[in-house]
């Protein structure tokens, strides 16, 4: 590899290639628990540069791992076999905004919130709203099929991707999908790329479907003394046919954590439900909010407050967005780890699942929070543990396995939002056992030399704690 650094420098320029250990070390991890050193970091600026890097890598059988902000939570951008980390953040031009076609065309290094800032004056937005939108790239969102608290109304990234330009493993550039809202024929290859975690090609450009910015928005919070009441309220709200733009659950652990870290002043109750409705007609938003309020009351929700004050809504929204990181301040010596962190379950099973999560945590000497975009059936959990103790990793491993066994038993799925990569792969492979061979066949067809983010998803190791080194300084005991 060393001797080829010169070749890579010739492609992208001297200052955009590094094999300095310090850089490799920083690029060896993302927001997950994993860590593995790449051999080199390359920062392309153009499609041609990406093509040349891929031709080189394919010819020399060198792994290539596309990377955006490195905010993936399951080891997505961690180069398990070394190789080239392709930092895509320099490809960050917004190429076209076409309000008349309700779409835009961007390079993949564009950051989600920056795109929305530019779209705002046009009266549109790119609707997937990951909490990490302030830093995550469109490429990373496509890689993981990211979504967020507004997915309940607006869907995930896949629902807003019309077309893609992708550099394949052999360096060929292909156009997938279309520029139109409907595209019925043939295999949906653009959609296949979304969520493929960098294993099938390097996405370089995306044509994205936009949504008009709603004119009105209101938000409410309801308190619940019993978690199961909150769960029932959520599934009832959805089944009445209302489509809130946000329907979030926070359990008591999550409430304590945000209050501690962010001073949000949320009430000390078993659970809160945060709901939001948006639209073009004020009365219609008000009508939906009133209905949600009634539903919460029916399920013993109390202290319900509603606001359409943008400042107050932003305060709550920002607090919610920072929930995962703030869990790291839950207790002295405990950190928040993204393990088994985004399962989706049938609506009717939300409350049961949240309760089971707490039971599993207790059994396994860890603390777990439960919160999430429950309006989409999505539950977020984080395991709070002492990451320096080896025994805690064993505890966490058991907890992860037990939680997923339960999730599958009630008809749920491994990941509703963040993707699989390494940490979730062992359980996911059990869940998806009937699809694994088909996925491997697709991977072989598009990447015969297995150079694109290898050993992730269906090819990931069976023990996530040993898939790579853990990024913490773990001691025995």
């Amino acid at each position: 590899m060393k001797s080829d650094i010169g070749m890579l420098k010739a492609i992208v320029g001297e200052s955009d290639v590094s094999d300095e250990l310090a850089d490799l070390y920083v690029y060896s991890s993302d927001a997950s628990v994993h860590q593995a050193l790449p051999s080199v970091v390359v920062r392309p600026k153009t499609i041609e540069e990406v093509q040349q890097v891929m031709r080189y890598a394919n010819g020399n059988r060198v792994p290539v791992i596309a990377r955006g902000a490195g905010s993936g939570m399951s080891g997505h951008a961690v180069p398990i076999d070394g190789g080239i980390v392709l930092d895509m953040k320099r490809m960050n031009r917004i190429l076209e905004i076409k309000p008349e076609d309700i779409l835009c065309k961007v390079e993949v290094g564009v950051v989600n919130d920056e795109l929305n800032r530019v779209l705002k004056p046009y009266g549109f937005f790119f609707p997937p709203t990951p909490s990490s939108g302030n830093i995550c790239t469109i490429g990373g969102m496509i890689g993981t099929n990211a979504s967020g608290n507004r997915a309940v109304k607006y869907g995930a990234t896949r629902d807003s991707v019309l077309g893609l330009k992708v550099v394949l493993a052999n360096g060929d550039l292909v156009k997938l999908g279309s520029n139109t809202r409907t595209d019925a024929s043939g295999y949906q290859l653009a959609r296949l790329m979304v969520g493929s975690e960098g294993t099938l090609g390097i996405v370089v450009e995306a044509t994205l479907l936009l949504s008009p910015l709603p004119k009105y928005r209101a938000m409410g919070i309801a308190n619940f003394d019993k978690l199961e009441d909150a769960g029932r309220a959520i599934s009832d709200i959805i089944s009445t046919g209302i489509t809130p733009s946000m329907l979030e659950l926070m359990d008591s652990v999550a409430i304590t954590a945000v209050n501690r870290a962010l001073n949000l002043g949320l009430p000390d109750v078993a659970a809160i439900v945060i709901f939001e409705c948006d639209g073009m007609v004020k009365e219609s938003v008000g009508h939906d909010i009133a209905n949600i309020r009634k539903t919460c009351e029916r399920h013993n929700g109390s202290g319900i407050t509603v606001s359409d004050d943008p400042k107050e809504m932003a305060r709550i929204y920002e607090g919610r967005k920072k929930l995962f990181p703030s869990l790291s301040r839950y207790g002295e010596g405990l950190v928040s780890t993204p393990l088994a962190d985004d399962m989706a379950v049938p609506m009717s099973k939300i409350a049961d699942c949240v309760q089971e999560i707490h039971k599993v945590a207790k059994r396994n000497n860890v603390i777990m929070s439960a919160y999430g975009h429950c309006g989409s059936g999505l539950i977020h959990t984080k395991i709070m543990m002492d990451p320096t103790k080896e025994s805690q990793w064993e505890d966490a491993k058991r907890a992860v396995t037990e939680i997923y066994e339960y999730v599958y038993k009630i008809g749920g799925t491994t990941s509703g939002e963040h993707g699989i990569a390494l940490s979730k792969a062992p359980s996911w492979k059990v869940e998806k056992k009937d699809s694994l061979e088909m996925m491997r066949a697709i991977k072989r067809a598009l990447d015969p030399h297995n150079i694109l983010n290898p050993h992730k998803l269906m090819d990931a190791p069976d023990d996530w704690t040993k898939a790579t080194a853990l990024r913490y300084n773990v001691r025995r005991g």
Partner: protein
Amino acid sequence: MGAGHLTRLEGEMNTCIRCAYCFEKCPVFNERGWDSDGARGKVILSYGLLTGQLKPSKYVADKMFRCTCCRDCIERCPSNVNVIDIVSSARADLVASGFAGETHKQVVENIKKTGNIYGDAEVVSPLKEGETPLFLGCQYLSRPNKTKKYIAILEKLGIHPEVQKEVCCGFPMEILGFKAEFESHKEKFSQFFPHKGAIALCPTCTVFLKEGYGLDAKHVLQVISEKIPEAKLGLKVTYHDPCDFSRGLKIIDEPRKILKKLGVEIVEMKDSKVQSACCGGGGGILMSDPSLSDRIAKNRIRQAIETGADTLITSCPTCEQVLKKAATDVGGSEGKNIAVRNIEDIIWMGVK
């Protein structure tokens, strides 16, 4: 391995969930673009130094010293990670391993020899009897006209400051990683400045008198804002919040109140108040990487020009210095001009 300054911060570094939220407005990351240049990168590099996975080296030191200590990352971090504590401790370990920059070493030597960062024994305080201890700090010591102006303003407002011979607060030693030198300087400082409280002229000194010495320090603008009379200056300006002001001391309203009372209209920049974009002058990069400092300062000047105001006001002498240079450079290369002035000039216009 260094001198173990990072050891106590292992838990703090584990608390960092590596979310990258601190990328968003890190001025160094925005200019250089490598993950290793941002706040998260610095936390990871520090972790590597702590665990021994990284050895101290010039390359690591260059990365670690490219930080303006603007506190933007701390403000944004949802896990409340004290990135600057981590960075300054990593710097201390690197310095202990022999990776101090020559310009930084010189500053520390200067403080040791002469009591000020310039190494100039001629730089002395304008001694003055009074009631309230006033701490000037090196930047104001070396700008006697500005200092006199502030003293005159205070006198006009009925506050009688006392100025004694002083030595540097020692912040440069602490932030540049010379922790041992700072520990011995601390005693010297306390001999020269034995007070429990003070008014200070420089935002950075004010923060450090509070955080480093536990003094009840107030910035001069906090005092002035309570007594400022009305005037009708009729100016239209944009105001640059120095990092140590809006994020360090959380002083956001006071300078605005002063300007408003003096009849000055403020047009806010895109990034202002607690989200103020850095001027590029802090953290030692002005000495170790002036070209990076210049680029960051020019970005800020461009934001100021976008407001349409013809003057940028700031309240920190370092910001003033780097932004003035950047304004001249941007004026020359891009043909767009803006004047840069310190707030004491405007206050003086209003009260004299």
